[in-house]
């Protein structure tokens, strides 16, 4: 049961990765990275339960935190600046 969930999470991580590679616009990549991070949090929590070591939850918590901060950082530095060009590429 846990393993099935882990497989589902892994597959969706793969799909998010494909989206991150494909782009096409900058925001799609950010979205995919954000999604990837959430999946990683879930994956680590589940792995912790699978191997019977709930210590891993600390790492999951860190990931949730880091994920949020990096999305905010990306937006903070690139929100109103020179992103026009890459949007027109799409």
């Amino acid at each position, binding site marked *: 049961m846990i393993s099935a*969930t882990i497989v589902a999470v892994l597959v969706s991580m793969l799909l998010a990765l494909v989206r991150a590679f494909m782009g096409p616009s900058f925001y799609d990549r950010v979205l995919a990275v954000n999604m990837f991070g959430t999946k990683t949090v879930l994956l680590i929590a589940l792995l912790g339960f699978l191997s019977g070591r709930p210590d891993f939850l600390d790492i999951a918590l860190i990931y949730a935190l880091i994920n949020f901060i990096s999305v905010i950082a990306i937006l903070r530095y690139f929100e109103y600046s020179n992103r026009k060009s890459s949007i027109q590429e799409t």
Partner: protein
Amino acid sequence: MEGFWFVLTSVFLISGAFLIFTGAVGVLRFPDFYTRMHASSLTDTMGSGLILTGCLLLADHEWLVMAKLVMIFLFLLLTGPTANHALVKAALHSGLKPKLGAEPS
């Protein structure tokens, strides 16, 4: 674990996994950024909530573990929608237009 709790845990985990998976498919296949965002943000929040609830049922009465799970859940609940909101706002400000259907003439 007794039968009832096992079934309940399975239901939470599997439905969470299903939501996560559909969200990922949506992100891959939907036509433009805003629809993709819609797919990912809704299913991410709900799916991770369900999966973490399933984990909560798995952690039988280890209070520290349960507290950490609740903290992760609250954290994701707060940050996920906030990050997505900020992302959409930034996209809208920078002039990324949503892809509309055929103009009604």
